[in-house]
């Protein structure tokens, strides 16, 4: 337990160390999340467009 507290306090510089590491962690995670979400959005839209095409365009006619 004492070891954990010592580790977290970083010799009294916890604020600086964890602000730096925390922002790095947050931004990298945020980038991954944003990438995944935008991929999902794009796939959904492409799927919707594809379905609309099959509904609106008669088969055989080039779109």
């Amino acid at each position, binding site marked *: 337990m004492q070891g954990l507290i010592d580790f977290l306090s970083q010799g009294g510089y916890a604020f600086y160390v964890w602000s730096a590491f925390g922002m790095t962690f947050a931004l*990298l995670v945020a980038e991954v999340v944003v990438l995944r979400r935008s991929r999902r959005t794009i796939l959904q839209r492409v799927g919707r467009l594809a379905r609309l095409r099959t509904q*609106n365009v008669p088969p055989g006619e080039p779109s």
Partner: protein
Amino acid sequence: MKINWFKYASPTAFYPVAGRLVPVFGVAALALMLFALYWGFFETPERLGGTNPQKEYYRIIFIHVPAAWMSMWLYLVLAAWSAVGLVFNTRLSFMMANAVAPTGAIFTFLALWTGAFWGRPSWGTYWDWDPRLTSELILFFLYIGFMALHSAIDDNRRADQAAALLAIVGLVMLPIIYWSINCPDPNNCAALHQRSSVTDIESNILTAMLVMTLGFWLYSFAAAFARLRNIILLREQDSAWVRKMVDEAGAGPSSSPPPGAGAADGLDAGGHRASRGVSV
């Protein structure tokens, strides 16, 4: 075995390749970063040696220096792909440059942010007009300019080429800018800032720093490839292979049918119109 590399210069061919590479690079990056964190926090001394010993806060070095290196390296990569794109007129190169830019901007911001939190305990200030800080800030502006110009132009082809040209102009200007910041007085230019020497650093600190750099590098690959896939999908959404792929995947989870009027509109306008509003 002979591989025809040019085959992969087409977005269609590269899309599945990138898809296979993303998890490989992602997992490797995560492993390396975790190792570097462990090594940096538990296997390094509590002080940075030398004439002016720094206490625990020096551990910011494990992300600060790798982030700064990556920010510069990724700008080189961005400019290189831009140049390849302008010379050979290959669409994938431009897409690659675009895929790298946000990750580069993130690392540039992180280098500044972590630098500020290292500067406060060691120099007593969050920001100083030190040449390196200033150059990093300018690099950040260049990344922002590249992305802003690209997103301001609706036509993909023009956006690609214009942003690529800007990246190359930026690359030509960067050394001049760096030099002018570094040496504002040409009459006495020498030794304005302390020279950092990687070889003087204690070997455990160096290990953690270099492993983290490698981890960031692989992470950049993974993020850039993932973004590249998004860009390809968005731009090729009207092509047969994307439609086929989506059909096979079951057309996605959304089931609510959109109103007919909007549907016809979206169809007629094609890719340009539809691609607005989604950021990649």
